[in-house]
Every structure is written in structure tokens, then in C-alpha cells.
């Protein structure tokens, strides 16, 4: 009799203890959750303030840049430079750059835009020279003996990084007679070359180096880079 009472009492005390522990754990959990939530909310708010400021700033820069480029294009097309047509132009450029300012400058990079433009312009004459050279080669192939023609598909992994440099390289390859870019998959170029010489010219990678130099990619140290930097050192001295 006494033993059963004792056992029951022990059981009950254990139950009470268990319940108390459960309650306290719940309370602690709630407290912890509330603190972390409030912290997260606070952090998010701070982040939103900073990010919002940065976002509006980049958006304004993008909008202005797009507007200037498009307005130049409009003036080139229009040919009527009276007040009426120019005001229509401003209106249209404003509309289009509002709608498409995230398209023209989709991935703004840290690199200086002016340097890229300057280097790109100096790249174009070299590309024309290459086009003339391969034109002469293809003429020789077409008029010369048949056994020089050896079409094949070559593939190479590029060291370039961004979409825009991929596209520049692919279009440069296609513009050069004798080679055509078929596809780009995960940084691997598939190129059709009409003869052994064109394939070898491509695989030396000079074109790729020059494009890496334009877009300042792939840790590419080029002679021109040091030449570009030289004036800065002179000024520092």
C-alpha cells in the first residue's frame, strides 16, 4: 500500500518535472526565435536601405548612358534638326531608355568603360587586316589544288569570362573567312575551319588574347597594359 503510494508520488513528481522542463524549453525557444527574427528584420532593413540607394544610383547611370547613346543614334537617323523633331527625339529616347535601360547595360563590370571603348576601336583595324589575310588564303584555296581543302570542326576551351567577350570572339571568328563559329557551350567554342592553316591560326589564340585585353579579363598581361599604365607611374614620380 505504502509502496504504491510512494511509486505514484514519484511518478507524479517526474511528470511535473517533465512538464516544467517542456515549458521552459518552449519559452527559451520562443525567446531565441524572437531575438533572431528581430535581428534578421533589422539587418534586412539596413541592407535594403544600402542596396536601394546603390540600385537607384546605378539605374540612373544606366538610364543616362542609354539615353545619350540612343539620342546620338536618333540624330544620326533623323536629319531634321529643328526644335519640333528634336523634342520628339528626346521624348522617344526617354521612353525607350526607360523601357530598356536594363538591356543595354545588363552586366556592368568594374572595368572602365572608356578604356574598353578605346581598345575596341583599336582592335577593329587589326580585325580588318586579319579578314584581308584570310580572304587571300581562301582565294588561294578556291583557285589552287583541291587537296589543300581540309574541312574540320575544332573545339577549344576559352579563357574569356563574360558574355560580351564570348560574342565578340565568336563574331570575329565568323567574320574571318574560312572559319565559322558553330556553337558555344559552357565556354567551349566549336568552330568549323576550312583548311589546316585557318585552324592553326585560330588555335594560336592571338584573337582571344586581344579580346581578353579589350575587356580586361582572364588576368591577361599584355604589352599594351604596361604601356597604358606607364603615364600613371610618370605622374606619380
Amino acid at each position: 500500500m505504502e509502496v504504491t503510494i510512494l511509486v505514484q508520488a514519484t511518478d507524479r513528481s517526474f511528470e511535473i518535472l517533465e512538464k516544467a522542463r517542456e515549458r521552459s524549453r518552449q519559452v527559451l525557444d520562443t525567446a531565441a526565435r524572437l531575438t533572431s527574427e528581430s535581428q534578421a528584420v533589422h539587418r534586412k532593413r539596413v541592407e535594403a536601405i544600402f542596396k536601394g540607394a546603390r540600385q537607384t544610383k546605378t539605374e540612373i547611370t544606366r538610364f543616362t548612358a542609354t539615353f545619350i547613346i540612343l539620342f546620338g543614334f536618333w540624330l544620326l537617323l533623323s536629319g531634321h534638326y529643328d526644335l519640333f523633331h528634336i523634342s520628339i527625339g528626346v521624348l522617344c529616347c526617354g521612353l525607350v531608355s526607360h523601357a530598356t535601360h536594363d538591356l543595354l547595360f545588363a552586366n556592368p563590370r568594374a572595368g572602365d568603360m572608356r578604356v574598353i571603348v578605346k581598345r575596341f576601336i583599336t582592335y577593329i583595324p587589326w580585325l580588318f587586316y586579319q579578314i584581308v589575310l584570310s580572304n587571300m588564303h581562301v582565294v588561294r584555296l578556291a583557285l589552287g589544288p583541291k587537296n589543300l581543302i581540309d574541312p574540320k570542326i575544332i573545339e577549344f576551351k576559352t579563357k574569356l569570362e563574360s558574355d560580351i567577350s564570348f560574342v565578340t570572339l565568336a563574331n570575329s571568328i565568323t567574320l574571318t573567312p574560312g572559319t565559322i563559329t558553330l556553337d558555344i557551350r559552357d565556354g567551349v567554342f566549336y568552330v568549323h575551319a576550312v583548311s589546316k592553316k585557318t585552324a592553326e591560326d585560330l588555335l594560336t589564340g592571338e584573337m582571344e588574347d586581344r579580346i581578353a585585353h579589350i575587356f580586361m579579363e582572364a588576368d591577361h598581361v599584355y604589352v599594351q597594359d604596361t604601356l597604358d599604365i606607364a603615364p600613371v607611374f610618370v605622374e606619380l614620380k
Partner: protein
Amino acid sequence: MSGVNDMMTKQSDDVIVKTVSRLLIPFMQIYALYVIAHGHYSPGGGFQGGVILGASIILLVITYGLDNALRKMSEKMHIIMCSTGAIIYAGIGVLCLILGGNFLDYAELDQILHVGIAQARSLGILGVEVGVGMTVMAAMISIFLDIVTGGLHSKEKNIQGKRA
């Protein structure tokens, strides 16, 4: 229904096509607006410009998927633009009628614009062309969207709700 879902998310996987169309679309749109705005001086006009404008949006749908394109310009916006353009066209015509001329007799617009008959005709043509351009653009896009989704894109909200 799965076809629509595919179309909503599907983007072109070709980096060349995507980048080149991204760079070309703003210039296409400016060219389209140039064709509309200079229709009274040179070849072109509302219809041609509207078609080019519609084509630029269609290019966006093909390369970046329906989702992204509709975020730029919702379906409701298409319907509003389609009807606004028609109202501008008919409104200018009826305005000439009210002012005592024939339908679309722009010379009568001089009574409210006071810029001379020749200039009034020029402005009237420009207004009509803007209306035609808006309607044609919205109609081109609507036809394309209807063909491409089998007429189911008006249920976009339900689909997006189900996915979320």
C-alpha cells in the same frame, strides 16, 4: 497547360543570340519610333513603325522568355494600348468632322491649333500615325502571344500562383 508553363520559363540557351538581341532591341525600338515620327517626311509611317516595334518585343519574348517580356509590358497594357491607338485615330478623324470638314480632313485642325494649314496637316498626320503605330504594335504582340501559347497566356496569373 504544360506547354504554356514551358514557354513562360524557356529562354534561348545560345549566348550569342541572347547578347546580340539584348544589344539590338533598344536600337530597333528607336528606329521604329523614328519611322513613325518621320512618316510625314520620308517613307514609312504608323504601320511600318508599329510592326518594327512589335518585332522588337517579339524578339525579347523569343530570347528571354515570356515571363521577362510580360514583366516589361503586361497583357493589360497591350489591350489598353491597342484600344487607345484606335481611339486616337478615330478621335482625330471625328474632330475634323466636328470642326466642319470631312473625316480626317486635317486642314480643319487649323481652327484649334492656329499654326497654318500646311503645319496643321503635318501635325494631324503625325497624330494619326502615332495612333496607328500603337494599335499595330499591340495587335502584333497579341497575335504572337496567342499563337505561341495557344491562347492560354491570359491565365498567366493562375499559372504563376500554382508555381509559387
